[in-house]
């Protein structure tokens, strides 16, 4: 498959953030387009439902519009379908500041974390991530 050297050189400017940004905007545009097609609706129908111009809807479907959550919510309500869904489960991360000795005998007792402090000697930051089963995955740094 033929490749162009200059184009390849310019591809090096693509960052993961740019990729994600473009992917998300194209995803939202394609999703709205698919819903309209499935519901046998036109861009004009959506424009009428939202009180927008057809040109505005057409611009949205180009995959270059920076949607606000407010606009997405309005479109979702007008179409009766969700455009984006949040995946994954919420994780609760708690950070506690405590004093502790830096040796092998250190044992973390979350029940002693009253007022976010463990009454041990020494000092340092300790972060405790509370997982689904309240198992502690902790690490520390000086």
């Amino acid at each position, binding site marked *: 498959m033929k490749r162009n050297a*200059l184009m390849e050189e*310019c591809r090096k400017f693509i*960052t993961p953030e*740019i990729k994600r940004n*473009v992917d998300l905007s194209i995803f939202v545009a394609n999703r709205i387009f698919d819903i309209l097609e499935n519901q046998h609706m036109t861009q004009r129908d959506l424009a009428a439902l939202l009180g927008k111009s057809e040109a505005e809807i057409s611009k949205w479907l*180009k995959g270059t519009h920076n949607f606000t959550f407010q606009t997405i919510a309005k479109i979702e309500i007008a179409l009766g379908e969700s455009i984006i869904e949040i995946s994954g489960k919420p994780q609760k991360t708690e950070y506690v500041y405590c004093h502790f000795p830096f040796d092998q005998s250190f044992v973390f007792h979350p029940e002693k974390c009253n007022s976010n402090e463990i009454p041990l000697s020494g000092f340092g930051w300790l972060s405790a991530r509370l997982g689904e089963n309240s198992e502690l995955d902790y690490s520390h740094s000086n």
Partner: protein
Amino acid sequence: MLKKLQDIATIKSSITFVKLNSKVKSRIYFEIELLEEYEKVNFYSIRFDGESDTEFEKFLLAFKDSHPDDIAVIMYRLDRITQDGVFPRHFRYAGKMKDRTAELPNNFDTANLRLYCLCISPQILLLGNGGLKTTKTYNEDPYLDKCVTTLQKIDSVLNHKEIKSEITVSGKTLSGDLSLYITD
């Protein structure tokens, strides 16, 4: 007296000659070149006679150092096109409804770098030139206007050749004699 009349006639004929000459349009020769090929889509561009770079390469060379982020967005949008195909709805129409000239807008319309292209088919994209849009419409900018009108003329030539089957669009390939010319 006769001499004077002869002189006037000579002057008049020269004027006519100049007028005729100004009406003769010059030919600009170019070649359509395959830039990159992918499983679903091929990218083509135009190389004008005597030039070392294609129009798209000229665009990249002009802006890669001054606008690397905008170039990166355009390059990634092209990468997406290689996966999804050439959807005209992802482009903004430039030119007229009857032609296939389109503008690849930069993301979120925050940057004003515009790339003009021809959406030949769902599998063929011809990448042209472009630039920074500083006016409300591209027509107000002589350079951008030239980028678009050049593509319109090329589209017209291509259309004509396609109708006459001198150039064929088969899948992601343009076949036939791709050495063509437009008039200035």
